[in-house]
């Protein structure tokens, strides 16, 4: 916590975040470019699905970050509620729309993938419905956090919502294990993967690349939110003077 508390001072946080943003962004772009090139030209098609399987290089990282984003909101919410960390509510507000965008990307690519393989754009299947719910919960969080900030709230109400929304993460993860679903079971677990190595290897490039771009956008948004708060404080001071 001592290292995290060092960043309680926004000036110190900005000093690190500012140079880190372009590094993360361009590293992410490079990794995603390598992953796309490898995934489109260097891997074999699937025995059953043919070329369609290549959508997984976008769909899987989007799904992981859609859920990872909410984990970030949950951790920030805990940091805010327990340690009253000043950057926590800024971080959660910065993550929310980005996580929502990745959840939406996951739903869209899944739909495009479902049409040629399953034979349907959309079904009210346990996994698909739970992911759609997560997207709606993100939208609700964005609205709630904005309303709270505009009324001068300290972010505790959105933080409670952030913790409550975490209920969806295990439901999404285990929906395909515990329920009958159209969506197949998990391919990647702690003990290994049921994706053949020849198809799997570009996926880590895409995962790390997507995550770096995600982090860069979040840092950018945090800096924007901090700058806006600073500008508003200055305007209030000027109005008083």
């Amino acid at each position, binding site marked *: 916590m001592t290292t995290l508390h060092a960043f309680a001072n926004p000036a110190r946080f900005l000093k690190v975040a500012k140079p880190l943003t372009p590094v993360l962004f361009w590293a992410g772009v490079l990794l995603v470019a390598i992953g796309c090139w490898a995934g489109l030209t260097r891997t074999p098609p699937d025995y059953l699905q043919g070329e369609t399987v290549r959508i997984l290089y976008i769909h899987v990282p989007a799904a992981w970050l859609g859920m990872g984003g909410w984990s970030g909101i949950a951790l920030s919410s805990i940091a805010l509620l327990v340690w009253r960390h000043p950057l926590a509510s800024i971080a959660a507000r910065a993550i929310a729309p980005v996580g929502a965008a990745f959840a939406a990307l996951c739903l869209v690519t899944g739909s495009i993938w479902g049409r040629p*393989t399953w*034979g349907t754009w959309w079904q009210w299947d346990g996994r698909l419905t739970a992911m759609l719910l997560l997207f709606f919960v993100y939208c609700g969080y964005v609205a709630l956090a904005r309303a709270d900030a505009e009324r001068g709230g300290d972010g505790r109400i959105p933080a409670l919502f952030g913790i409550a929304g975490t209920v969806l993460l295990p439901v999404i993860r285990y929906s395909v294990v515990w329920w009958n679903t*159209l969506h197949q079971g998990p391919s990647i677990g702690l003990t290994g993967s049921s994706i053949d190595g020849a198809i799997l290897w570009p996926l880590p490039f895409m995962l790390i690349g997507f995550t770096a771009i995600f982090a860069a956008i979040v840092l950018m948004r945090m800096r924007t939110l901090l700058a806006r708060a600073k500008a508003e404080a200055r305007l209030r001071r000027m109005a008083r003077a």
Partner: protein
Amino acid sequence: MTAKTQRMLLVALALGAVALAALLALSALKDQAAFFYAPSDVARRAPPLDRAVRLGGMVAAGSVRRAADGVTVHFTVTDGRATTPVTYAGIVPDLFREKSGVVAEGRFKPDGGFVATNLLAKHDERYMPPQVAGAMHETKTLAQ
């Protein structure tokens, strides 16, 4: 107890409640959230005959027969424990094949058969190049 430990305890309690809620949702909604009936569900408990339902499982090996009219397909859905005969008239999805997953939308007949109005292909979580898969692609994990 300092205020911080108290808050930490409350958050830990909240997280425990959230985990419990997820567990309850996953187990309690098992029947309601099921996307399809498996043949062994049908054998255990009679399915409703009066409304459209889904039947899912594996297309049994060697069970696909095409009728003389060219559009009707007969096949058997199995989950390893029980089987259900299915009739479907229409275009089957690209991934529809024997020993692979299928979800049929339609109605049960009083004799235990199933008349499908739409077929969805269900694939499993394994992805591999054609040369690795060889001629075999048996689906082992579909029956739940």
